[in-house]
């Protein structure tokens, strides 16, 4: 996720929402992007699929599981009791509540071919193996910091 390339065009949001519900409602999307006018930052946000995932640990219904094939942390909506504990536990706010089906929703990496990446026209979203992305993310983050400091000057 390269914040120096995101232009907050929202193609990822609409593509994700479409994948979930067949509609383009932003609130159904598991990825959210926002432009912060005052600091001039474009920020995409979606599940980090944490190594030690607090949402998975806290879920009383054992509905939050790791997909061994893709590494994604997924919610089994048949098991989800709608208690919202995972939403409270996620430090990044990347889980939202589906009020119609009364379950929590989050990114599942579309079984290894994320739609948000396919529909990201700026190249800000990339889907790469973790070992390749670490160095890359570090570089990107360094640039991000430079951007923030530049915009605050």
């Amino acid at each position, binding site marked *: 996720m390269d914040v*120096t*390339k*995101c*232009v*907050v*065009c*929202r*193609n990822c949001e*609409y*593509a994700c929402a*479409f994948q979930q519900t*067949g*509609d*383009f*409602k*932003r609130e159904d999307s598991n990825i959210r992007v926002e*432009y912060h*006018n005052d600091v*001039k930052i*474009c920020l995409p946000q979606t599940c980090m699929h944490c190594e030690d995932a607090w949402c998975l640990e806290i879920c009383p219904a054992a509905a939050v599981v790791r997909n061994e094939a893709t590494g994604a942390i997924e919610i089994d909506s048949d098991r989800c009791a709608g208690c919202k504990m995972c939403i409270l536990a996620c430090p990044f706010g990347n889980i939202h509540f589906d009020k119609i089906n009364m379950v929590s929703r989050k990114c599942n990496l579309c079984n290894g071919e994320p739609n948000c990446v*396919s*529909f*990201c*026209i*700026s*190249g*800000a979203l990339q889907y790469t193996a973790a070992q390749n992305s670490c160095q890359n993310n570090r570089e990107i983050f360094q640039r991000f910091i430079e951007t923030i400091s530049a915009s605050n000057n």
Partner: protein
Amino acid sequence: MGGVTGNREQYTSLCRMCDNRCGINVYVENGTIVEITGLKEHKWNHGRLCVKGRLAVDMVNAPDRILKPLKRVDNKWQEINLIQAYDEIAEKIKKIQSAWGDRAMSVWKGEALGFLTQENLYRRFIHALGSPNYFSNDSQCYVGRWLGYALVTGDWATQDFIRSKCAVIWASNPPYSQPNLTQSILNGREKGGKLIVIDVRLSAIARQADEFVQILPGTDGALAHGIARQLIEDDNISHSFIKEYTVGFEAYAQYVMDFTPKRVEKETGVPAETVVHIAREIGSRRPKVAFYAGNGLEHHENGINNVRAIACLDGLLGNLDHEGGNFTAEKPALKDLTLYKEKPLRHLGPIGADKYPVLYDFRKECHTISAMDTILSEKPYPLKGIILTGANPVLTNPNSQKVIKALKSLELFVVRDLFLTETAELADYVLPAATFLEDSELHCHPIHQIISLSTEIVTFPECDSEYIFLKKLAARLGIGNYFPWKDKEELNRWLLQDTDITLETLRAHPEGYKFKPKRYLKYQKEGLPTPSGKFEFVSKYLKGHGYSELPEYVSPAYKSSPNPEYPYVMVTGARKVCYTHGRNRNFQRCRSAIPNPDIEIHPIDAEILGVKTGDIVTVTSTVGSVDIPVKVVHKSNILPGVTQVTHGWQESNINLVTHDDRNDPIDGFPLLKSVEINITPKQNRNNKD
């Protein structure tokens, strides 16, 4: 080309939901298109697609799509058979020809269906019929910029962003208007290039700009001249290019000397120090500077010269046809479908050519705005019939009331489209058209010098593709000999006849076939395709037509003679991510994303007017008025006093207030982006009820 997995077939093609032509995979199940994804191998989009691309699935299968010919009978639509429709239309065309002359017939090509082959087919058809009147959307979009550059360099170059050290995006928002151009701009920036965005609004691409320069509408020429002056003063210019390959530098340099940073600030709203700063940012990176001139530049009374002013910067920087600069792409030697050599018809007075000879000389475009006056006044001669394809001028041409009145008064108005658009509603006949997924055309991506073939993937019984429609109609009009090719396959083979490219080669290269390796600096040996063969800071050709030979800057009317009754200036036509011009409003999904039109206003203006987001205001100009909801944007998004309304909404058609009689004197483009308006809040009607 294709493949079958289970009952799912896969095809490759190119998207035409906008002009970007991204490579796509199209999946078909039981004869129905069910999915579209980005084609990873395609050199343009590398597998990425915007949501409009996927929407083509909705478009092709839409429940409200027109699948049967419609005829207006007693002001009601009656479904008729296709053969009957073509027969009746042909008879009516013949009647018009014999009663009013051949030139009383015309065609009008829009953007909703096809590409270049379609355009040339319509040009061929109307000339074969004996009329010079070919109209298209191009006489108010794209051609203004093309002409502005062509008058200086002979062509409009494409941008080598990926190799540039400085990308200047001027009055354009590629993430919405040319989605996958965004990748190359930002990849160039990732490699250390600067991104400068010059715009009235803080657009999506401006969010990533290293320098965002916010400018008053229609003042871009003054800024370009200010940059030029600074480059010359800093001696940050390419002397060798100027000396060897340009004409008129002395006169131009003298002219721009008056554009001091202070004067530019006063004119454009861009701080004097910013003018100096960006001139240095650009100059220090020459010649690897790539400029993209956007649609925001061309809808003004001074549009062409503003574009020329920007084009002239290439002459100072030496970036023309340079690696990382503005690259002049070569074209494949396709056969020409048009009949301008065999049957020029200039003597028949193509509509608008007398008033805007430059537009006709360079592009053989008649002037759609003049067409409305011609229809209503019968001057200089009667125009009685239009066959319009994939266009919606009721929403996209200025002064909609006049457009409606004119189109209604035609003797024969035939519309080919996918949906019953606001324009189709006025027709005598509405013919079902084929989408781009039901047609096969040749396409070039100039920046890569690649050519691709789009694929006919599905067909619908009565939805003829453009070629087949024209062939069938031509046969009924005695001009069938101009359309001898049995089908599109034969036509495409003929188009490729003089090249060493075959359809088989193109089918084997869905990623795009490189027809020629890129060569830079071609002008050094071959000259430029201008009258002088050189880069023209001054144009003797324009002088010959009575225009200024220099790209003279004229201050927009809202600045030079403000009208206190219309204190706001309105820009129209900023793009939205899921819409293209007047299209896609019938897809519920898009309405979920962006439900309604709005007028973007600055928080200060909202306070003065006492309105908040969602309140309805009336926008008024000397032409008309329209009601529209307000959107109060962040204070950095737009300057106080400046507003923006996107076109293409039937419920708030902003072209009800735009002028059709205030056009750029050179190319006749309408004033759509610096319109003087007044804004009045609707009196809280809800509270009264």
